[in-house]
């Protein structure tokens, strides 16, 4: 496979561009979208590259149509992605739930900007974290990855496709306007250096008939591909193993939804990713994700120089969430600071995990500027002087 961009070397590109290239190297061959700042460059890059690798990029009438189109493409056997920002992500919520219920592997990118509503189109925010996790209705489970660098935008997008295929689930890549538009030097591996996971296909006539069964006991059903001779029924209604609607049977509903939860939650160790910095002897911790974790990292270095035993837990995934790990962290430190570009979202997850074993303090900031390291340092020094 020849790609219409550099592989096996470094390039100096925007986060949006990195996401598009990563998607293509992970096997994405269908993109549907509707332009929106700050995610439009993902669409532009996909429109440029996909026809050159025998893929399809299509502009839909809106974001509802965009996510519907990628769900259809996925059932037709293509790895598929859409990208948007807050207003479009809101429109996608209904079909995000449809993708959960029909167990359709898709990747949805949300480059967050200031909200609610059309808000601050050009400026970064982290106000959609709870929406990414809980935006659609009903009991549901999905995976949310949050990059903090352009390199991570690339790496996490590849990972998003692999997780989507492996667990037959929608995966959200939750970036922000800063990552979207900043340029950094990125290492783009050779194609053979990238691990690419493909979905399980039916292996027996029985599996062909049961697109929502669990033949392997791992909660992940083999997924038939439309057009290859299978007669398959796909519905957002509660369905049995054959895909047939069964909307008033309590046990069938419970079995289906609990399996959708179990296939993710039983594999938390495989899915959840995080990095620890200087936490070994820390008495105070910062928990951060995405763009803000960079400023938090610098703040840790500045505070260490001033003698404070502080470390950083940087979360690559925010859902599923490792509440046990958060409890263990809370047992080791007396206070956890949570800087985030909203008025308190990740904070609530951290607080729930900490179970009162450490005090959890929010360092909120909204308006479109990332916390500076100095601002985090100042808030923590003030907090620790008390």
């Amino acid at each position: 496979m020849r790609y219409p961009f550099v592989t096996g070397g470094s390039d100096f590109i925007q986060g949006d561009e990195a996401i598009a290239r990563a998607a293509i190297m992970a096997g994405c061959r269908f993109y549907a979208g509707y332009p929106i700042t700050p995610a439009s460059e993902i669409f532009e890059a996909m429109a440029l590259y996909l026809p050159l690798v025998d893929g399809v990029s299509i502009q839909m009438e809106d974001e509802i149509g965009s996510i519907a189109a990628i769900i259809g493409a996925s059932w037709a056997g293509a790895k598929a992605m859409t990208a948007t920002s807050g207003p479009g992500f809101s429109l996608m919520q209904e079909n995000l739930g449809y993708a959960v219920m029909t167990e359709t592997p898709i990747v949805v990118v949300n480059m967050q900007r200031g909200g609610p509503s059309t808000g601050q189109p050009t400026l970064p925010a982290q106000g959609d974290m709870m929406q990414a996790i809980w935006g659609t209705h009903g009991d549901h489970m999905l995976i949310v990855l949050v990059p903090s660098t352009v390199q991570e935008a690339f790496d996490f997008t590849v990972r998003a496709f692999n997780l989507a295929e492996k667990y037959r689930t929608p995966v959200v890549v939750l970036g922000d306007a800063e990552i979207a538009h900043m340029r950094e030097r990125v290492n783009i591996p050779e194609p053979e250096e990238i691990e690419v996971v493909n979905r399980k296909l039916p292996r027996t006539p029985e599996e062909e008939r049961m697109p929502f069964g669990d033949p392997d006991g791992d909660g992940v059903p083999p997924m038939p591909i439309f057009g290859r001779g299978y007669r398959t029924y796909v519905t957002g209604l509660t369905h049995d193993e054959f895909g047939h609607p069964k909307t008033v049977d309590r046990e069938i509903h419970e079995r289906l939804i609990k399996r959708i939860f179990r296939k993710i939650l039983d594999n938390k160790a495989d899915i959840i990713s995080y990095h620890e910095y200087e936490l070994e002897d820390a008495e105070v911790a910062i928990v951060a994700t995405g763009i803000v974790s960079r400023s938090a990292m610098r703040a840790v270095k500045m505070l260490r120089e001033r003698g404070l035993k502080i470390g950083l837990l940087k979360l690559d995934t925010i859902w599923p969430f490792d509440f046990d790990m958060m409890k263990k962290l809370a047992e080791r430190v007396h206070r956890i600071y949570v800087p985030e570009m909203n008025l308190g979202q990740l904070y609530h997850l951290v607080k729930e995990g900490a179970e009162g074993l450490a005090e959890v303090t929010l360092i909120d900031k909204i308006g479109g500027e990332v916390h500076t390291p100095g601002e985090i340092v100042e808030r923590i020094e003030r907090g620790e002087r008390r």
Partner: protein
Amino acid sequence: MQVRFAGIGGQGVVLAGIILGEAAAIEGLNVTQTQDYSSASRGGHSIADVIVSREPIYDLIVTEADVLVALHQLGYDTVKDSLRKDGTLIVDTDLVKPDREYTGAPFTRLAEESTGTSLTVNMVALGYLIARTGIVKRESAIEAIKRRVPKGTEEINIRAFDVGFEEGSG
């Protein structure tokens, strides 16, 4: 090293930042480039930040610039406080009247004289900056210009770069 370019829309400030970043990336350095511009595409202030380091970069925007390149008074006034006390200020000496020690040349005039258009002012200033600071090699910058300027304008942009580079080498 933190470098900040400041000017007004239409001066190619962001492209100068991108080309400096690309040149640093060519040399295998870690580099982060961000930009900030007011909504007016021409006439409003325009800022480009480039952070270059051998270490991982955690900063996003320039908070304590080692070098500030100012191509217009409006841009200079907007961000002059972000330049470190002992930092280097490089200005278009025709268009910016600084209130502190500085170096520079009439970049816009040099662009017009050497290429017949003021549009290459960003390249003149970039050449001057690179000659003065040695932040990247000339060859890397030339390669970056070839990759990033519109097709067909490579020669004129390189000529403008070299005018600035020579001015800065003096």
